[in-house]
């Protein structure tokens, strides 16, 4: 009886200890986690405080504490801007195009590379595809201008061969969007394939052997073994990509756009740059940024919810 009593009294203490024990056991791992956590707290969470300037008439010399509070006035100003809805539409449209065509591209290339027999050739191709990722948009825009130039570009020679009148495609609203999406895919194709190639190595080779024995061809193997094998990675990257939907490519568009295509290429980020930051309207810029983040949050949670519905793991 007494022993039981003693046991009962000690129970809470033991339980607390048992909860702490695994932490103590892995203390080195937690210690290693600390710098990463600290990074997020210092550089990501604490600066969140700055959001308040969206609700202020912010003045850089007075600072956040002394600037005047204006409530939702800045947001009203943003939404009242004549072209705001056009700009929002452009942002979504360009971004959706980029996901629609740009997201599957690295998967296809990774699958193709995976089938290559010659290891050296594979590495060679992979490196070349990978290089444009390191070139800045300013340089790429110069390359695009030079290729597309109707007066002295490569394309103008092609036009001449076919006996057609050279056109300035960069000043054509339809062509401009295609150029935006295509140059974006070209730049980041190689970078995107790396993750898929890594995921492909995880697929169990015995499955392919079994499939070959059963008489499945390359197509069947790709469809029934390879793709399901990397499905979780695809879904994960898609969710992350959807979270970036509001970023339609600031640098790229800023250096490539011109007056002739402004109405199809002005996006929220370039708009913020021109009317917020360049004019010193920091509150304006923050308000648009906050609006951006709110939509991105909804999108990422939506994508997460859908992926869970389909029985995938998702992010959380």
């Amino acid at each position, binding site marked *: 009886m007494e022993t039981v009593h003693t046991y009962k009294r000690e129970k809470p203490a033991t339980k607390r200890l048992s909860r702490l024990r695994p932490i103590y056991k892995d203390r080195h791992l937690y210690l290693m986690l600390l710098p990463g956590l600290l990074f997020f707290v210092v550089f990501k969470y604490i600066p969140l405080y700055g959001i308040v300037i969206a609700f202020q008439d912010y*003045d*850089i*010399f*007075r*600072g956040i504490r002394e600037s005047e509070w204006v409530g939702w006035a800045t947001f009203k100003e943003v939404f009242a*801007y*004549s072209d705001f809805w056009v700009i929002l539409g452009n942002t979504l449209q360009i971004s959706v195009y980029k996901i629609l065509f740009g997201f599957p591209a690295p998967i296809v290339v990774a699958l193709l590379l995976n089938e290559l027999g010659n290891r050296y050739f594979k590495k060679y191709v992979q490196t070349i595809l990978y290089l444009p990722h390191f070139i800045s948009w300013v340089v790429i825009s110069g390359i695009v*201008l030079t290729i*597309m*130039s*109707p*007066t*002295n570009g490569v394309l103008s020679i092609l036009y001449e061969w076919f006996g057609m009148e*050279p*056109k*300035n495609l*960069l*000043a054509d609203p339809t062509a401009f969007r295609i150029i935006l999406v295509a140059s974006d895919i070209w730049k980041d194709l190689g970078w995107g394939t790396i993750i898929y190639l890594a995921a492909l190595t995880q697929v169990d080779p015995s499955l392919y052997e079994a499939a070959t024995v059963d008489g499945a061809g390359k197509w069947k193997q790709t469809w029934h073994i390879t793709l399901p094998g990397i499905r979780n990675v695809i879904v994960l990257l898609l969710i992350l990509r959807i979270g970036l939907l509001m970023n339609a490519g600031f640098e790229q568009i*800023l250096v490539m*756009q*011109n*007056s*002739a295509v*402004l*109405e199809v*290429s*002005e996006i929220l980020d*370039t708009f913020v740059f*021109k*009317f917020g930051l*360049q*004019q*010193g*309207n920091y509150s304006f810029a923050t308000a648009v940024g906050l609006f951006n983040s709110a939509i991105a949050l909804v999108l990422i949670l939506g994508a997460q919810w859908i992926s869970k519905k389909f029985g995938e793991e998702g992010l959380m």
Partner: protein
Amino acid sequence: MLASGDKPDIIQIGTDALEMKFTKSGLLLPLNASFDKTPNLQKFGADGIWDAMKHSDGNVYAIPIRGSAIDNIPIYRKDWLDKLGLKVPTTIDEYYAVADAFSNKDPDGNGKKDTYALSGWTANGGFDLSTSDQVFGAYGTLPNSWLLQDGKLVWGSIVPGALDALKFLNKMYKGKMIDPEFVTDNSARFKDKVLKGVIGAPVYRYFLMDSSNLNNYYEPLKQNNPNAEFVEGGILKGPGDSIGFRMLTRRGWLKTAVLNSSPHVDAALRVLDFLASDEGNKYMNYGEEGVDYKVEGDLLTKTITDDQMKQEGIGQLRLAFNALYDQTSPRYRELFDYAHKIGYKDPADGLVVENNTKQVELDQYTGQQYVKMIMSDGPIDNMFADYVKEWKKRGGDALTQAFNDAYQEKNKK
């Protein structure tokens, strides 16, 4: 620097909007209050700069950078004119003939259609409308600039003359006299094309013709083609009254101000007063005499390279640009004077209204619509009417009213 809470004594501001904002918050020191202590500074802007900088409370809060008040004049390839037996055009019809010959009669003699009369450039997604000022000026207007009509300010982009000019440009575009890349090129590519002999009759920097090569235009031109020569043109005579070429705002593209909160106000003012003096101005622009530059007669020559200048910090905090070009070549001074003679002074210069961001927005919209009209296949009368209506609706009317109010207010005094 600002975020650290360590406030500077002297700051430099880029835009009018920012200057207004800081002034409204009472951050800047009124400079005119201590003009008696800073005689050089007072003299610096006596010829109208302080008038342009004056706020509605009568105070001057910032010193604008002083320099050439105009950048662009009409220029023509002289060697091309000579070859084709043409003269520098004086009327808009003569200009059309020259433009046609420059574009379609192979002035460079390489057997290919690869030359144009006119082009333009885009910066930050907006088309620079000053690149066809000679055409607009011939029709008595300048886009994105104020005009004075019957004592009232009128926006130059929406007057009927602008439509005539746009029709002229549209005709030029259809006749392949405007480079199809006029809207996609940036200013670097435009410069390259002028120096390489692709564009023959643009509106461009007058310093291009200065053989002292102060701004590095002349030598590259000669390197590309030793025979190349540019000659300046004048205001083109149009159907009505013509006007000249847009001058830059006297409010400057960079303004220097002293912060009210500075504990070293006197020292800051002393520095600015020194920089505003002839001696300080020369020192800031060229460095030390005998070390960084030499003077022969009344001409000044730099003896160190631009990179060395940068390393030594020459030209980092200046109130005037290149010491007002006083010490360069005689040809330079001639061009400088000529450019200022054919310039058109914005009647609203120095007027500042609330919400200047609106103007940035409207200018961008104008550039967009103008480009569409220049490139249009069909007639543009309806497009122009729609543009004017939309411009007014987007706040153009309110802006015009605000500027007129400010104009009346200023002229009353």
